[in-house]
């Protein structure tokens, strides 16, 4: 059956990319980040989400199979 780690990994990778890019694009927009105590929470949260997504993706069966094939 479908390995759940694959869709989880893919979805959080996409989330991570969206939020990180948005965080980068809004760097210096201090007014926007007043509510989050002056922290660019998008950038930090985006990078964490992206990392989680990529780890899940690399652990998932479809990606592991793909990597194995390349080795041979």
């Amino acid at each position, binding site marked *: *059956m*479908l390995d*759940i780690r694959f*869709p*989880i990994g*893919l*979805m*959080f990778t*996409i*989330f991570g990319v*969206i*939020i990180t890019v*948005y*965080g980068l694009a*809004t760097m210096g927009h201090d007014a*926007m*980040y007043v*509510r*989050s*105590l002056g*922290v660019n*929470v*998008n950038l*930090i*949260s*985006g990078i*964490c*989400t992206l990392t*989680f997504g990529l780890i899940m993706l690399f652990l998932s069966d479809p990606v592991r199979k793909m990597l194995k094939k390349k080795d041979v």
Partner: protein
Amino acid sequence: MDTKFALGGIDYLVMAVYFLFVLGIGWALKKYMKNASAFLEAGRSIPAWVAGLAFISTNLGALEVMGMTGSGLKYGMLTTHFYWIGAIPAMVFLALFMMRFYYGSKARSVPEYLKLRYNEKTRGLNAILFAVMTVLASGISMYALAILLENVLGWNFNISLFASAAIVLAYTYLGGLSSAIYNEVLQFFIIVIGLLPMAILVMSDVGGWNGLQTSLAPIVEGKGFAADAWTSTWKYTATASGNPLGVAWYGIFAGLGFVLSFGYWCTNFLIVQRAMAAESMTAARKVPLIGAIPKMFIPFLIIVPGIAALVLMNDPLKGFALPLNSAGQPIYDYTIIMLLKQYLPAGVLGLGVTALLASFMSGMAGNVSAFNTVWTYDIYQSYIRPVTGNKDADDKHYLKVGKMATIFGVLVSIGAAYIASKFGNIMDFLQTIFSMINAPLFAVIFLGMFWKRSTGNAAFTGLLGGFIIALLHHGLSVPEGATTLVKGGWIAPLITYPVEMAQNFWTAIYAFSTATLLTVILSLLARRTKTDDELNGLVYSMTPRLDDSAVLWYKRPWFLALIVGIIMIVLSILFW
């Protein structure tokens, strides 16, 4: 206080990606749905960790998340009793002692276990009550979702209701229980990732745990409690009046820690179904234990921010307030909404809102997927069209029935949502009533599993008697200050409890005791109806011990249970 969020395009993009994945998972699982077992039982093929996360995720619906954050504000750290003493012992017991009978008996549902262990009428009673209860619960959560979307995002009530119902229907119709479980796991991770930034920001704003304690002291003393009453769990439970929950330690132990939590975690098919879908006996026994580990840490994500909200509310500089209801009282359930609004800018806000949406939807999907199983196996197959013997034709037929039941369940839920929108009180009342079936059910299943003398007729009477006593107690008692009959006292308000929680505890305790007494006495008076052989696999003393020696020691259920127990004890001491 304005509850509207100003969402940007980026937030809608995040939401859209989520919906795409939810539907995509349903679509990807469609090809595996070849027979009723695959659709309704996930083909008993789910890995332990996936089922374990789904196991707690089913319980972590949006109403639970919103309610628990609000309770954090109202009752402080005592709310964690719902996550520690009120959940963990029951989950460990389910894993170590009960799961092997649910899983090993070949029963496909909790009502079916009752049929195998006792008799048809006991199953029938439980199946019908359960089916009605799950559809109602799903309707109530749909209604709550639509209201929330209206208040927070400004969406139209009807459109929100139908759109969310359509999405839930689409993915449960396509992928059945597997789809519901997969989406619950997805929801679990979104909740953690979506709410964590808020939790961290709130805590750093109030100066961490120490800052929180310092700022809380004058506020809490003003309410007439000890300075650290909101940040301790057991310290002030010597008397009921010393803590904000209004219940003393023995009440918490017996009411929450035993009757309510064992009734919920060990017998509610909605929950147990996740463990029954596991790929093997060992996996099924590990499911509740794997779920228990994240369960113990969820309070830091949803309850502790609620406690911090009490500090924010009392600090005019923070500009934090809860919306008020028509009577001018703060709506505590909106605590988490207002916290998200307070701290998250566009972007992560989209993730936070998606987390709430996800938990609403997976809550509905969970109800629908439990409903269609009980309907198909315990009602349709037993009373309307029994198995014919032609396996292929049967498989196809029951798959179709299961799929139709999914559509039917969603449609009835929509109806229930509209009833709730017109007569909210009636739905609250029904939900209270149906929550009363768990305590007697636990008594009956417990006696069935661990006492070979208990008989079918006694169990049926116990189940019914316990339910009736629960009803009577609810009709005769009221929590102090109740304004509607929904809260109790609809026969005569003879008994008064300081808080609603105490009333619920005692209702459950009476129901459980009645069911136990009736079942024991009637069983002793009657002759056993089942032979030792028939009880093999259904009763503890009649079933050969499981041999775990082939499993690596650190992968054995007993070892996991030990770890879970140690974590719970350490947490309880740290936050004593």
